């Protein structure tokens, strides 16, 4: 009877004596790959209670139990590593990147505000913020150093801000450098997402844009789940707060989740946003499915969507009369 083991293939007789053995070389990586290939095999399994270690020593694969365990340890470890690294699928990497981006954004905003608050005491007239302010501080430090070619030169000279002492200047510059590097990191992650989306979900990227597409995958949990969602769900993904309110208090159902940020939706006149969002969601759903199941890019998807939106717009050029629009809806909206 033939037996597959992690160290080789054995031929045994009825009582389990080894008649013949074909041993693998002691190459850890090859042994690990071979071990993984045996996971699904249904035939030639070792019989119940078969002593693998004794067999390995008997047929000369290992000289001693110690050597057997040493090799087994290396092989199981290598195999597990291979499995774990392949368990991170490309869409999971995108999700990690999206989450990192959100964290970075939050931190960057908080630190930028701190910087602007702090530097505001020394140059309140600059009107700079965010990355521009950080760049400015890294470049000049005190407003006294602003060069005459700089558009802010006059404002800096006539500023009513306090004088920046060297110790504070050093501190502020260092802080601004940190903020700046966060902005750089953000760009790097955005470029990564854009690039990965093109490979993982080109149709979704085309319809939604890279960031919105990545966020949809992230909120759904995976490209597979997104592909399984009905388009009515895609329409409200990310609107969970509004959605729960709707379920609990019978507030009007939310028309749009994060797809509200889609250019076709947020440029639509208010009375068409629901309709447009529905059209966009249905194409996003289709795009996710094509990406998940075939992966081929279909440029006609976007054309069809644009045509559909144009049709919606031409059919409904004017806002509806507000007669039977229920009062509830308006009140809710105002309260937000």
């Amino acid at each position: 009877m033939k037996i597959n083991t992690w160290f080789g293939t054995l031929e045994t007789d009825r009582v389990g004596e080894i008649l013949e053995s074909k041993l693998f070389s002691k190459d850890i990586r090859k042994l690990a790959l071979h071990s993984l290939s045996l996971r699904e095999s249904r035939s030639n399994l070792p019989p119940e209670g078969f002593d693998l270690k004794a067999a390995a020593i008997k047929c000369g694969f290992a000289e001693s139990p110690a050597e057997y365990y040493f090799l087994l340890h290396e092989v199981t470890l290598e195999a597990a590593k291979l499995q774990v690294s392949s368990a991170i699928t490309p869409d999971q990497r995108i999700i990690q990147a999206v989450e990192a981006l959100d964290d970075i954004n939050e931190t960057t905003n908080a630190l930028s505000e701190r910087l602007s608050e702090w530097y505001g005491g020394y140059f309140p007239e600059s009107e700079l913020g965010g990355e521009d302010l950080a760049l400015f501080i890294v470049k000049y430090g005190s407003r006294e150093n602003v060069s005459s070619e700089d558009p802010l030169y006059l404002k800096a000279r006539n500023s009513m801000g306090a004088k920046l002492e060297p110790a504070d200047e050093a501190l502020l510059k260092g802080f601004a450098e940190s903020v700046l590097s966060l902005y750089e990191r953000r760009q790097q992650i955005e470029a990564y997402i854009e690039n990965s989306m093109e490979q993982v979900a080109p149709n979704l990227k085309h319809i939604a844009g890279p960031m919105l597409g990545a966020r949809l995958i992230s909120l759904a949990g995976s490209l597979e789940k997104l592909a399984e969602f009905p388009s009515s769900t895609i329409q409200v993904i990310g609107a969970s707060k509004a959605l729960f309110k709707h379920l609990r208090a019978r507030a009007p159902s939310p028309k749009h989740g994060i797809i509200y940020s889609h250019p076709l939706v947020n440029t639509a006149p208010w009375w068409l946003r629901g309709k447009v969002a529905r059209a966009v969601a249905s194409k996003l759903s289709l795009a996710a499915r094509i990406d998940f199941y075939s992966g081929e890019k279909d440029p006609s998807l976007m054309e069809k969507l644009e045509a559909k939106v144009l049709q919606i717009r031409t059919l409904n050029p004017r806002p509806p009369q507000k007669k039977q629009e229920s009062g509830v809806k308006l009140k809710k909206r105002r309260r937000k």
Partner: protein
Amino acid sequence: MPEVKKLSDGIFEVVKDKKQLATKNLDPGKAVYREKLIPVQGTEYRTWDPRRSKLGAMVLKKFNINLKENSKVLYLGAASGTTVSHVSDIVSEGAVYAVEFAPRSMRDLIRLASRRKNIHPILADAGKPDSYSHLVEPVDLIFQDVAQPNQAEIATRNAIRFLKRDGYLLLSIKARSIDTAANPKEVFKAEVKKLEQAFEPGFEILNAKDLKPYHEDHLGVLAKLR
């Protein structure tokens, strides 16, 4: 100086401020989770928190866990290795086959195993022992903590394949993963019955106790092949 009392092979009670369950650290100087390291006369002990480990709780509830220095253990549901690390301490000259199916947990387990030569990590579904039968030798003890509805079945399949005739099965049964609404006592009774009648000749139940106060709604079971 802390006082050390041996409870059974490889398992100790260290008294420092209070009584604490402990094992000898196989990887001196390194803690695995947030356990304490207590050196006593050239030997380092790692405290073993029964609230974080079903097996630790079983030891304190006087289950005979039947482990020796050179025992071979099949551990099903290894998670990130909290308890596995103590088993690895106990069977310092033996082997722990640590099966876990969640890649996230396996990452931690790999880190642990790369420092401890007697842990052999296996990313697989414990419900499919055929998928690792090419790796695992006959073992002296199967410990299982998977918190799955079909835990009795998983234990049975693995025991048939890997448990030595004179080996033991130690099981942690979680009532709520089987039936969230039912009375835990009823669930436990049904699970024990399953083990006794699962197959011919079936298991003989040597001990079955709940794991209070360390774990709520958990039953510990010690069994051997009939």
